[in-house]
Every structure is written in C-alpha cells, then in structure tokens.
C-alpha cells in the first residue's frame, strides 16, 4: 500500500486526515488543506520526478509546477476519488514531457555532452552516520549504478518500475496514473525489470573490462 494511503499523524498530534478530506477542505477555501497535502507529498513527488529525469534542479522545478497545478486546478478534483493517483499522474506527465523535450533538445544541439549530462548525483543521504565509510561508498556506488541503469531503459518501462518499487503502488493504481490498461502495466513491469537487470549486467561488464 502506498505511503500516501497510510494514516498520517498531523504535526500537532491530532488525528490523521485523509487526502480526500484535505482536498475537499481546500476546495471549500481552506488553505490549510493544500498546505498539509503539500507537506505530505512534496518529498515523495520530488523523489519520483528525480528518479524519472535524474536532474535534481529540474526535479525541484517540476515538483513546484506539480503543486501549482494542483492548486490552480483543485476544482477539477472529484471529492471521494483518490488524490494520490491524480497527483502522480500530473507529476508523471510533467516528467515525461520534460524527457521528450530534453530528447528533442539533445538531437538539435551540436555541443551537448550526454555522458556528462547523465551523471548521477546522489545528495541528501540520510543516516550517513549510521553506516561505515566503506558501506557508504558501496551503497552510493550501488545507488549510482541503479540510477544510471534506470536512465538507460525507456521511460515507458521506467515509470511503472519507479511507481511500483519506490512508491509502492499496485498495478491498478499504476494503470490509473499512467493512463494505460492494467495488462500493459503488468507487461511493462516484467519487461522493465528484465531490461534493468540486463543494463546493470552490461554496466558491470564494461566496468570490469575497463579495469582490465
């Protein structure tokens, strides 16, 4: 079950309020409903977009745009429906549009350096003190490996993988977010995982060959 559906203890210790209730409050003019949703989801949306596009600054900009759109289009939300899939759908569309734009841009740019652009930068590592330096390096290297491999697989496989593995959505919810049939989610997850395994194996083989 996605974290968004778990009960959330409010900061002031009061009983948790559902996303739907908060959105309804906001629709009725209560700004705090939007603020609480923002606090609840801003990190998750930032992470989702970052894993999709692998660019921290751009991920922040797009996260900002996601919540601006939620604010400006709150009237389109149907009370009683689920908020999180709607939110992720907006985030997903923005990320995919950005990837398309980037792809076009690279195609026409003569001095781009894709290898540099694609570098993975992991920041904000949490609990850094709780692991040894060696473990830290290993963890970071593994994370970089996966991130680079993720970026190598087509976005149509990447998106469901991130939604499933990082966000914990089930097939039905992923289908709703990505606006594709459930069966397509199933086949893309299967194919995406296989592609990711292959991409990782190739990256390791290349690294081993480079080391001699």
């Amino acid at each position, binding site marked *: 079950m996605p974290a968004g559906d778990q009960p959330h203890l409010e900061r002031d210790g009061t009983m948790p309020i559902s996303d739907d209730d908060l959105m309804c409050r906001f629709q009725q003019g*209560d700004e705090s409903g939007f603020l609480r949703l923002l606090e609840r989801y801003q990190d998750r949306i930032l992470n989702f977009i970052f894993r999709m596009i692998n660019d921290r600054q751009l991920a922040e900009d797009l996260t900002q745009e996601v919540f601006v759109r939620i604010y400006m289009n709150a009237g389109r939300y149907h009370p009683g429906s689920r908020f999180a899939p709607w939110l992720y759908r907006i985030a997903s569309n923005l990320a995919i549009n950005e990837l398309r734009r980037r792809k076009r841009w690279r195609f026409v740019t003569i001095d781009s350096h894709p290898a540099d652009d694609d570098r993975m930068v992991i920041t904000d590592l949490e609990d850094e003190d709780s692991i040894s330096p060696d473990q830290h390096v290993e963890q970071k290297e593994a994370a970089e490996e996966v991130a680079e491999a993720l970026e190598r697989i087509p976005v149509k496989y990447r998106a469901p993988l991130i939604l*499933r593995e990082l966000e914990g959505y089930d097939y039905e919810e992923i289908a709703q977010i990505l606006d594709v049939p459930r069966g397509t989610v199933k086949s893309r997850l299967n194919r995406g995982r296989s592609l990711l395994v292959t991409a990782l194996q190739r990256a390791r083989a290349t690294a081993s060959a480079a080391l001699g």
Partner: protein
Amino acid sequence: MNCHQVREHLSAFIDKDLDSDQTNAIKAHLIRCSQCRQTRDQLEKIGHMIRQMAPLTAPADMQFRIYSSIRHKVTRTDRRLHFGWRSVFVPATAMIIGVFIGIWSDASLSPGSPVPMITSEHRDHADTTIQSDADIMLAGLLDSAGVDSAMIVDADTRIIRDYNLDRYVHQPMVPVSVDFIPDVGSDSGPGEAKSRDSVVPARSYVLDNVPMRVGYERTIY
C-alpha cells in the same frame, strides 16, 4: 508451465499479483528449474536495489517557491478577470480597495515577545458563523483594513497566502494569536516610504504557530 511462460509472469509473481492457480504453478516450476529461480532472484534483487536508493528531501524554500508561483499565476488570472471558484471577493460597491502586505525585520518578533492569545471571550462577541479564533482575527484584520481580501506574507518562510473575508467567515482555521506592534511609520520597512494616510498599522501575528508581521498599503481607486 514452461520456462517461457513462467518468465512472462515472474514480475507479477514477485508482486503477488497472480491468482492462486498461477502462483502455485510458478512455485512448482521454480522448485525444479534453477535458471528460472536465478531469474527470479535477480528481479527481486533489482527491486531491492531501487528501494535502497537514498531519498531526497525537498528544499526548505519549496513552499515559498510554490506560493510565489501561485501568486504570480493568480494575479495574472485576476488581471484577465477570469474568476474561478477560488476568485477573490469582488465588492459590490464601485470602490475597489487593494491591499498589499509588507515584510519587516523581525526585531519585535523575538521569541520572548509576549503574544496574547485570542480567547473564547472574543469568540462570544463574534458572528455566529465564525468558526474559530483564527476567523475572528482574520475577519477583524480584514475588516479593520476596510477590505475583503488580502495577501499575507509569512515573515519566516516567505509563504504568501491568500485570505478573504468571505472565506474566513465560513471556513474554520487553526488557532491564531495576535499582538499589536507600532505603526508602520515608526518602524523600518517597506511601508515607511508610503503615505501614512494610505497605510494602516502593522501588526504581528502568529498563524499556524509561525510568527508573521504584516502591514497594509491601502490603495483606493
């Protein structure tokens, strides 16, 4: 099931998205097929590796950036007179009053500054449709400024929030405390350069447990 069929469903098997017949058939195959077991292990491991990726935290100014962008878009929308559900209250009178809120240095907002809470006795004097202390404060705030809507800038986070009298008469809010501070004219801040006639006293507030200091520039068209 043969290996090809099993591998088509391995991902759904890992995600526990198969019915019991399919699940049992794959389990039976995995017991006797080491290659498919290896493939399953790889797929499970890749999922684990994705989940182990270090999470990012949104920057501290994310809310400010979002509200700044919203403010910009709402202003543009209002200029085009496209009033949606969120539109500000439009006075029926011919006089339109705009309110702008300034941000001051926080010298008078030190943690030790006494900030009296609005108590229930204030509520008793309020209109019965007002739901909370915050409503009383904001309704009074807007009413004393002679306007129906306002932007309030959070002095700490720089979050800009829209308030309008109509909304706060009907919507409950979190408790708010209020403290009066000297007039804008006697303090440093953006209001200083304004004509005193057009500026109402600045006040400090604690809204959502965040100290704010606000003042108004009243523009009468």
